[in-house]
């Protein structure tokens, strides 16, 4: 149920609390268990990166938190103070921006069902276009933009909402390696400027360590959480931490943890995409 029950919560209550979450696809015949007994707490303003083999149900988990799908068992409790319709803004892997809207219109779409007044919509769209280096393209259509630019539009659309929670589903997966690094660094400084609670899904361990306060590792299907690392770098941090020995050893540790899980999930990848 999607209740709005008021509840006394202490200041240390997690922003997102996931307990015993399970998801099974398909009613009869072939059933696929995507998630099993997932427990995860995400604190307020914490940046959590979720890594795991393809098809392990990472996206399913994110879609459930975004309330695009319902779990088969368990519950997600999201703490919210805003009056917005949904407490979370989402950045999709395939951008999901509309080709018939200009860049500015796409970004403003994020505010369509909020009660932000028109005047402020304009200002906020301008602000976020500026922050993401899109100001010069405000009136362009997405077709005229490169992949990196399009993904910036998708990020701007989510950021402009200024919601308490940001859910990002492999937002940089379709970008080339150079562009990916640039956007990673931009996101890092953006988030350090205006913090909020983030769940960030990625395949890229380096990306997870650079951005996250925590890196959570999921098993192959059915996905459940097998490890939870606290990233030992403080804030604000810069991309320079990549060169440190600590960074390399954490990446190695994560890889060792993940390697055994990667293989069984491989064949299931396309199925999860389809579902």
């Amino acid at each position, binding site marked *: 149920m999607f209740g709005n029950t008021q509840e006394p919560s202490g200041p240390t209550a997690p922003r997102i609390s996931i307990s015993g979450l399970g998801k099974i696809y398909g*009613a*009869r015949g072939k059933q696929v268990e995507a998630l099993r007994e997932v427990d995860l707490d995400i604190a*307020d303003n914490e940046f959590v990166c979720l890594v795991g083999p393809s098809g392990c149900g990472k996206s399913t988990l994110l879609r459930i938190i975004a309330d695009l799908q319902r*779990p088969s068992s368990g519950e997600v409790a*999201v*703490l*919210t*103070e805003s009056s917005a319709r949904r407490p979370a803004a989402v950045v999709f892997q395939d951008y999901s921006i509309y080709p018939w809207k200009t860049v500015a219109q796409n970004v403003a779409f994020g505010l369509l069902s909020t009660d932000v007044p028109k005047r402020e919509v304009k200002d906020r769209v301008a602000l976020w276009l500026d922050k993401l280096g899109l100001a010069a393209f405000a009136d362009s259509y997405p077709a005229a933009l490169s992949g990196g630019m399009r993904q910036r539009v998708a990020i701007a659309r989510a950021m402009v909402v200024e919601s308490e929670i940001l859910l990002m589903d492999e937002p940089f997966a379709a970008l080339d390696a150079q562009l990916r690094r640039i956007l990673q660094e931009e996101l890092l400084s953006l988030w350090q400027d*205006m*913090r909020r609670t983030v769940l960030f899904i990625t395949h890229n361990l380096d990306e997870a360590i650079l951005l996250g306060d925590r890196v959570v590792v999921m098993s192959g299907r059915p996905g459940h959480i097998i490890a939870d690392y606290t990233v030992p770098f403080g804030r604000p941090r810069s991309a320079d931490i990549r060169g440190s020995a600590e960074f390399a050893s954490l990446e190695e540790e994560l890889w060792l943890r993940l390697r055994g899980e990667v293989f069984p999930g491989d064949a299931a990848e396309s199925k999860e995409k389809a579902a």
Partner: protein
Amino acid sequence: MTTTMEPRRAATGTPAPAAGTQRTWRIAPTKAEIDPIGHARRLRTQKILLGVSLPVVLIVLWQIAAQLQWIDRRFFPGPIEIAQAAVDMVASGQWFGDVLATLRTILIATAAGFVVGSLLGIVMGSLSKLRYVAEPTLSAFYTIPKIALLPLMLLIFGIGDMPGYLLVALGVFFIAWISALEAVLAVPVGYREAAEAFGVSRLRRFGHVTIPAVLPAIIVALRISIGQAVLIVIMVEYLMGKEGIGYRIWHAWSLFDADTMYVGIVTVALLGYVLQLLVKVVGAKLVPWSGGTSAAEK
């Protein structure tokens, strides 16, 4: 198992709490997730009930209107009288004769027009030169109302079945042709290039790439074609038939036999529905990969 972090207050940017109230949004399974099999079954039952309820409501309203004399029963008999007339017509064999005659024209002419039209569309979509030559002329012919050609057909073929077959086939031909042509042009370049890159010959490309790629559009075109075929065949039968549902409707009208006329009209509606349903079911089998389209929706 998780590290609880000190909650940090954002300096800027976070939304102002609405009067400081904190709410909890709970995302939990609904009935649909707790009992997925029962839910799927309920959905199916619901779908059928919803589809049936509108015609039932309309028929009941019609009967009430006739019973209460809101409408003139000489011209607008109620459903019960029409049903009685239908039973008589079925019993006398007349109804089957009419349905058979109309159905024969629809099936033969649609099959012919559709096969020729979609093949030509696919070929023209694949060969740009042929497209440049034939497209303007065919587009011009497309807009001629088919029924306007009936006198010409009568002149050439005389009175008989041929003019009816030809007009229906022609009407269907253009729908199939345009749909197939546009569908071929809309096939993503990547599909063609992948076939080219693996050295697949043009001829085999038809079977492996082009035809499967356009099949969903072709099935939609077939549904539209069935509707067009029914329309044309009824008109032709009005004008020159000796049998068939269209003839029966027109003939009954000229005899002020309203009951029979309505039986004809209802029969046409049912015929169109059954044929379209058939296309939908067959279509779903033909394009198992095309999830989400109406053709694949069971």
